[in-house]
Structures are given as C-alpha cells and as structure tokens.
C-alpha cells in the first residue's frame, strides 16, 4: 500500500517537473512574439532601452508606429501586402494543384522514372537553399521569373519536395479499388482525379496548404534575391527597408509591421489547424 502511494507521489512529482520544464520552453518560444507585440506599441527610443518592459504612459506610442510603418518611405506598404498576397496565393495554389497530381501518378505507377522523381523530391528537401540561391537568382532573372506573378514557379520548385512527400504518403493509403470503381462508373483519369481522388485528399491539401502559406508568406531571402526590389517588395522586404536617410532604423515601426504581417498567418493557421492533425494522422492508418 505504502509503495503504491510512493509510486503515485513520484508520478505526480515527475508530472510537475515536466509541466514546469515545458512551460519554460513554451515561454521561450512565445517570448519573441510577445516582445514584438510589446515593442510595437512603444516609442522608438524606448525599444532599445526598455525592450522587455510593458509600455507605460511615458513609453507608449499608441498607433503611431503602425501609421508610421505603413506610410514610411517611398514604397507603399499596401503594394507590398498585395505582392505578398499574390505570391502566397498563386504559389500555394500551384504547389497544391501540381504536387497532388504528381503525387497521385508517382504513388500509382511503379516505374523507375517515378522512383527517380520521388527520390529527387525527397532530395530537394535536404539541399539547403543557400547552396542554390546564387545560381537560382541568375536563372530566375534570365527566365523572367522576377515578378510576383512568375516567382510562384520558383516556389513551386522549392515547395514540391515536401508537398509530394506528404501527398504520396496519403495517396498510398487510399484503397485502389475506389479508383477502379470510378473507372468502371465512367471516369477517365482526369475525372477520377478531380471527382474522386482530390476530394479524398482534402485533409492533406489543407495541411500542406497551411505549411506552404506560412513558408511563402514569411519568406524573405528568396524574393529578396529574385524580385526586382525597386519594383516589387513583399512584406518582409518592406520591413527590411524601413530605414531613415542615414540608415537609422525605426524599431517601433518595424515591430508594428512585423506584428501586422504575422496576424494573417496566425489567423489562417488557427482557423485550419485542426485539419493539420487530421492530415498528419490520415496517412498513418489505412482507413
């Protein structure tokens, strides 16, 4: 009896320790975002001096940082937002559309060609972007992929690895009989894909979609290298260029724009995050 109680106490102690450790880790993760939120409402001079203090009567700047950030410089902030939206929407659409189709083909056809393509996709995930970025920026220039409407093709290439990997995993878990039934019912390959396979891929489409949106929306380096910065800026680039005439940076305005830029992606994630869990689990068990 005593030993049972001891075990219970020890279990409780372990749980408490785990809770404390995990809470600390959680705080460490959230801290940068909290810092951004706090400082976006502070005057510029106090961002450096009282970085972690909450805004008070003396330090608070109200909405001034937001207004300044959005009106600063000679490139309109709304144009950057529009560019980010265009690039994110088109890139995500292209990745979901083409990668789901490619994954279906790869999963259902057992040829050497498909195997090579599949392993190339996997390989593309382990190659760091920095390895290819300079050759890429030159190639993108030559091929005129340096506008918000064409850069999604570059994103399609970089996003295909993870997307195809996830889609293939899920397609393999779909019983082939469903597609055979569709072919007998009157579907050709295209109809089978759009009317039968694609609807079944919905959880994975949402999971991959969330991951791609977060990546493309927040990406700084690729558009910075590829886009013609004087003509087209995305939000991360716009924030980078919040500099005064002598190179001084208004940190308050920077924080305000960072906050504005992460709000859409957080809302998007929260709205669809339950499907991420479904999507990840969906491929695990044959259902």
């Amino acid at each position, binding site marked *: 009896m005593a030993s049972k109680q001891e075990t219970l106490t020890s279990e409780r102690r372990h749980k408490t320790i785990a809770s404390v450790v995990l809470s600390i880790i959680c705080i460490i993760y959230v801290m940068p975002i909290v810092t951004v939120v706090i400082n976006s409402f502070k005057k510029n001079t106090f961002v450096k001096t009282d970085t972690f203090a909450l805004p008070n009567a003396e330090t608070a700047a109200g909405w001034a940082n937001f207004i300044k950030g959005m009106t600063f410089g000679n490139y309109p902030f709304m144009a950057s937002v529009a560019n980010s939206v265009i690039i994110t929407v088109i890139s995500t659409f292209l990745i979901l559309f083409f990668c789901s189709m490619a994954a279906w083909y790869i999963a259902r056809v057992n040829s050497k060609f498909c195997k090579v393509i599949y392993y190339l996709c996997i390989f593309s995930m382990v190659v760091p972007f920095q390895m290819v970025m300079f050759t890429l920026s030159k190639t993108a220039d030559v091929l005129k992929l340096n506008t918000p409407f064409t850069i999604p093709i570059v994103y399609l290439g970089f996003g295909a690895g993870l997307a195809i990997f996830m889609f293939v995993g899920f397609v393999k878990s779909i019983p082939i009989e*469903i597609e055979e039934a569709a072919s*007998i019912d009157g579907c050709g390959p295209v109809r089978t894909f759009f009317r*039968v396979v694609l609807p079944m891929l919905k959880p994975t489409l949402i999971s991959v979609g969330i991951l791609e949106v977060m990546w493309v929306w927040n990406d700084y380096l690729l558009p910075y290298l590829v886009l013609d910065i004087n003509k087209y800026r995305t939000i991360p680039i716009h924030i980078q260029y919040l500099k005064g005439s002598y190179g001084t940076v208004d940190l308050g305005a920077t924080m305000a724009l960072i906050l504005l830029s992460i709000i859409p992606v957080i809302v998007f994630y929260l709205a669809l995050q339950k499907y991420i869990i479904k999507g990840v689990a969906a491929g695990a068990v044959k259902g």
Partner: protein
Amino acid sequence: MAEVSLKHIEKIYPNIEGEKKHFFGKKKDAPKKKSNLKQVDGGVLAVEDFNLDIADREFIVLVGPSGCGKSTTLRMVAGLEEITSGELYIDGKLMNDVAPKDRDIAMVFQSYALYPHMTVRENMAFPLKLRNVPKDQIDKKVEEAASILGITEYLDRKPKALSGGQRQRVAIGRAIVREPKVLLMDEPLSNLDAKLRNQMRAEIIKLRQRIDTTFIYVTHDQTEAMTLGDRIVIMRDGVVQQVGTPQELFDHPANLFVAGFIGVPQMNFFDAKLTKDGDIYKVKVGDATFVPSEAKQKRLAAKGVTPQDVTLGIRPEHVTLTDDAPELVTGTVDVSEMMGSSIHLHLNTLGKDVIVIVQTQDLKEEKRGGFKLGEKVSFTFGGDVIHLFGKDDEKNLEF
C-alpha cells in the same frame, strides 16, 4: 443483360513487380508469386486457356481457393486487368481493348469501394451523372434501387456512418442503378460476419429475380457458389477444373479436387482397388467389397476402365452407420460434433479421417447426446453414391 464469351483467355504476370493495370498502365502492388502457378517464358501464368460462354441473364459463379485466378478473370472481364491472350466478347463485341467505362458493366468490390466524401445518394447517382442522365431520372432510379435494397433511410448519410452490411448494399445499389449489361461481383460478402452473409446471400437471390442482367460472381465460399449460381466454374491454379450446374458438380465431380471442394463437410476419400469379376466392376475398401450401381457400371464399361488402384469418394451424408449390412467398414470415433439435428462423427478408418453425418432422430435415445471417443462403429454405403477417381490423374473414371 448480355451474353459474355471468353475464348482462350490467358493472363501472364511478368516476373517483375508492378503489373496490375491502372489508368497509367501499371500499378504499385504486384500480385504475389504463387508457387503452384505455372512458370512460362513471359512470367507466371495466372489464368490458363479460360473458355466459357455465359448466356444472357445467367448467374455464373467463379469459385476456387485463394490464388486460383478467379478474381483475375473477373478483373479481365471488367477491364481492370489486361488480357494477355484470348478474346473477350460482351454482347458479341470484342472488348479486349475497350476501357472499363465503355464496357457497360458494373462491379461490386469486396471492400465496397464507396466514395467516402459522397453521401449514399451521391454514391449511387455518380455513375448516372457521369452519363449525363437527367436529374429527375437519376432521382427516380436511385430511389428505386434504394427501396429494393432497403437503404432509403440512409440516402443522406456518408458511408462512414453505415455498417458493413449497409455499405455493401450501397455498393450493390451503385452497381444496379445503371442497369448494366453485366454485373460483376468480387467476393462481395467476404467482409461480412456469418449471419449477415447469410442474410445478404438471400438478398442477392431476391435481387437477381428483380433485375434483368447477367451476373458473374466470384467467391471462395462453396456454399455461396452452390446457392447462387446457375452454373459454377471451379478453378484451381489458374485452370478451370469443371463447369456445371451445382447439382452436376455435386453429383458428378470431374476430379478429386472438385469432389473435395464442393460439399460441406467435404467428401471422404479411401484408397481402394477396382476389380472386374466378369463384366461386373467391384471396389474393395479394406475388407469390404462394394458393387457400383448399374449406371456406373455402364459408364465405366463404356470408358473401358481397367482394374486398377483407385481413390473412392463418398459424401458424409451418403454413409450409413449400421452393424447390419453385408459389407461393413469399421472405425473408431475421434471426434463427435453435436450439430443439433445431426451429429458429425469423425472416424479413424483405415488410417484416414472419415466424416459421417448421422441424423439424431435416427439414433437410439442414449446415442443422441453424442458418441464416446474411441468407440468402435461400423458403416456402409450404397454402390450408387460412390465416386471413383484415378490414382494418377485424379480424374473421375466415369467421365
């Protein structure tokens, strides 16, 4: 409704992986190599020289053990599997290279294969929508099929909210709603429990009377084959063993395999000796000698069968337990299975396990509870119900 004709159909799976036909030509999971299948130059011969003419509105059952090629044959008829050689005709038209959707067939799969994102109504309406049938006709046909199958109340549910039996009804509904020329069924009841299977079997018999179409049904369950089929095709290792009505297969099995496959419990086999006394054939089993019936004598004589070692087959229901007969075979009770109206006795006789079905009402009061293990019993059987098979080729000597 249509006639289906299979002429010299063969299927060879190449020895490399990935042969099953898909839209794109190939599919991932290649069938496993079956050791009993014939190896030929191109690979493994899964179906060998399959010939069958199926009449309009006939119910044909392909039956056999796992890996015998019955599903492969069905899939070739469906167009899901490429025909290596031979010709397939549906309604007189050569179908070898016609896409599944253009064959005017419907298929019910073992795993139901319902579209999970569609409701029952949408599932059933799907093939009609693809054929641009007007909406009011689609609704009418779906309602009709649903009422035949008793699934009207589930029409607006998704498949995941249905039980196995209900899902299979939906799958059948989706197939019949199109009024196809040929309805193919690939082990449709295998995923159901025993009770539901019996119920669905009866439903299929009823369904068959209500819809005018040709059925090709694949199963490994001989009870389903016997109860459903107008004719049964028994297959083994890719080769057709016998084609006939259930009664023909039961009464006149072509070989030892068919004899053992059809009938529950399966036929008993003894090592025996066929002798000839003048013009009269006799069979000696142990110390007992049996004389085949006149009809059998004639058939054996007509085929010019010579005295030889044979395998004698006798069905459990044709064996009579008795002490009072001129020719008796004895054995000891190994197992006594009480089935209610009958007892299945497993006897050790001449080194073989012999099953005898004894009706409990024919037994004395003290025996009705079962037999004691190790008890000695004797039995006999008539010359009209014995089957004689050659020792070498295992073929029925009468045919």
